[in-house]
């Protein structure tokens, strides 16, 4: 083991990675503009919602990761905590794009044929509760169920809640990164204790608000249906996909020469998280499914009925195989958690897998089935995914270059992390 590391090196975001992330952003823009130009506006909006939500989820996961490490007083992660901190710093960008997409989605309208065959004017997103007249008993759009929920599920409250939740997460992400940078100059325990307190506060706020955030942003796309498991289900998806992105970033940066002190023991710890929470994701997914299956009430089963249509059924099963069976079988043994290549491939699989998971939450209730299951995922889906992948890489890596050092040099547990051995 190397005992002396040089921590002064700053990360430089140059070369291939930068070029490719910009190319990806261009591909994304082309896909979005193409989608609107070719009359696929609703589908494009659904994809924009999917990817802004995913983008925000990964950034939130960065803050959550930092907070968990501080609250647990964990030492092993100290030498790579700059990566989740950088993710947290990007959350404001993700939050703004998400809120813009949401506001545009329920403000802009188009004429569609509804399930009863009538021509109605509906917004692009949240068409069930955000359409004009759903709460007005004299309107022909009147929907008694939605009217009953209008005290909570209305446009103003929705936007206020989103701004409050995402805004508070942004502040905590900024604070945790700021304290860590200030610690580099000052040393001592002062900022560590502050980070600990802030992390505990953040975890309480995050724990109570993230289910509501998921109910609002995703579950309300099918506003007549609800599930109390949905919040934790989304939390699990966020945590697994975010961990995969953190690990993938770390492996990639290590490969080009940064983070030389990160060893396979760190990989082992990170991958244990990924493995464990993939099982947790399955547990919550299945708990939601089983309760609805067993109770067999039409207003609840309609959710899975839509996902059981021939256009979505293959994806429904692939979702389980990719996000449960693959990590279960590949990552169970100790050895596979310690091989960079295996972990890297698994991270990519899980990042795509949880994209599919979000896809299965959003598409059946918005765009609905189109022609065949293979064309459900087309150029728009892939293009928007690639575009936001590029945007995330560009913004997160730029945020990482802002740190003076890739390591919190005076973190009290830094030595423990450098000698992490399991």
């Amino acid at each position, binding site marked *: 083991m190397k005992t002396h590391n040089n921590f002064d090196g700053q990360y430089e975001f140059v070369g291939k990675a930068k070029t490719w992330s910009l190319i990806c952003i261009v591909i994304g823009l082309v896909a979005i503009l193409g989608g609107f130009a070719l009359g696929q506006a609703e589908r494009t909006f659904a994809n924009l919602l999917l990817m802004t939500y995913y983008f925000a989820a990964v950034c939130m996961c960065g803050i959550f990761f930092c907070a968990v490490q501080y609250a647990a007083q964990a030492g092993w992660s100290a030498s790579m905590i700059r990566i989740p901190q950088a993710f947290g710093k990007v959350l404001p960008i993700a939050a703004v794009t998400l809120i813009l997409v949401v506001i545009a989605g329920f403000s802009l309208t188009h004429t569609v044929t509804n399930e009863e065959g009538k021509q109605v004017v509906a917004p692009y997103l949240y068409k069930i509760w955000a359409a004009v007249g759903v709460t007005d008993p004299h309107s022909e759009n009147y929907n008694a169920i939605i009217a009953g929920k209008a005290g909570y599920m209305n446009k103003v409250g929705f936007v206020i809640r989103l701004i409050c939740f995402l805004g508070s997460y942004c502040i905590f992400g900024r604070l945790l990164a700021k304290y860590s940078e200030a610690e580099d100059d000052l040393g001592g325990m002062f900022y560590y204790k502050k980070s600990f307190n802030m992390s505990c506060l953040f975890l309480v706020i995050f724990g109570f608000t993230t289910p509501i955030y998921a109910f609002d942003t995703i579950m309300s796309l099918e506003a007549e249906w609800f599930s109390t498991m949905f919040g934790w289900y989304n939390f699990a998806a966020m945590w697994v996909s975010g961990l995969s992105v953190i690990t993938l970033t770390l492996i990639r940066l290590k490969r080009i020469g940064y983070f030389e002190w990160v060893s396979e023991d760190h990989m082992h710890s990170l991958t244990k998280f990924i493995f464990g929470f993939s099982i947790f994701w399955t547990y919550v997914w*299945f708990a939601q*499914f089983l309760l609805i*299956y*067993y109770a*067999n009430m039409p207003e609840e089963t309609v959710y899975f009925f839509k996902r059981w249509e021939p256009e979505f059924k293959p994806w429904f099963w692939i979702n389980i195989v990719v996000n449960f069976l693959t990590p279960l079988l590949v990552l*169970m043994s*100790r050895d596979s958690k310690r091989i960079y290549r295996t972990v890297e491939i698994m991270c990519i699989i899980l990042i795509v897998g949880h994209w599919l998971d979000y896809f299965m939450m959003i598409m059946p209730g918005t765009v609905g089935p189109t022609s065949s299951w293979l064309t459900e995922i087309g150029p728009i889906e892939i293009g928007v995914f690639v575009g936001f992948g590029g945007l995330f890489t560009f913004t997160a890596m730029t945020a990482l270059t802002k740190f003076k050092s890739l390591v919190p040099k005076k973190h009290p547990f830094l030595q423990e992390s450098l000698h992490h051995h399991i």
Partner: protein
Amino acid sequence: MSSTKYILGVFDDPDEMMHGIDKLQKNSVPIYDVYTPMPIHGIEAKLNIKDSRLGYAAFMFGCLGGTIMFSMVYYMLVHDWPINIGGKNFFAIPDFIPVTFEWTVLWTSFGMTFTFFFASHLFPGRTPRVMDLRATDDKFVIAINAKGNIPHEDITNLLKEAGATEVKHNDRKYVSYE
């Protein structure tokens, strides 16, 4: 010929004990085992101890438990005594998953525990095999098989040089049976 079966080097300090292991290995003295009151980082690698295979046993027990429970529920609820529950199929797989999962977990944990007991000769009611009782308290003990490792004085000196506070020449392997 001496009646010594095992030579024990008793150390007060784990670092000195690690130093003792190095010394013995440098002099090609095979070490039978090392007993410490707490886990010590890196000692497995130093002693070339193979990775535990307990995980494989746990996996097998888990598969067995899951299979048994799934077959049992299948036999009971589908084959032997089908009951109409809410109009579901008799063979409603999602309903079987929780209990299959529970049995998988149960068999994994019990199977792993009993395998460990079996492999380490540890079982409630059985006298444990201990070479020096203080190794469970505050002493760090290196055990060397005396047979074939001669001369014993050299080993004693090596251990003493490394910082052993006491070197015992035991005629019996386990002291706990007395």
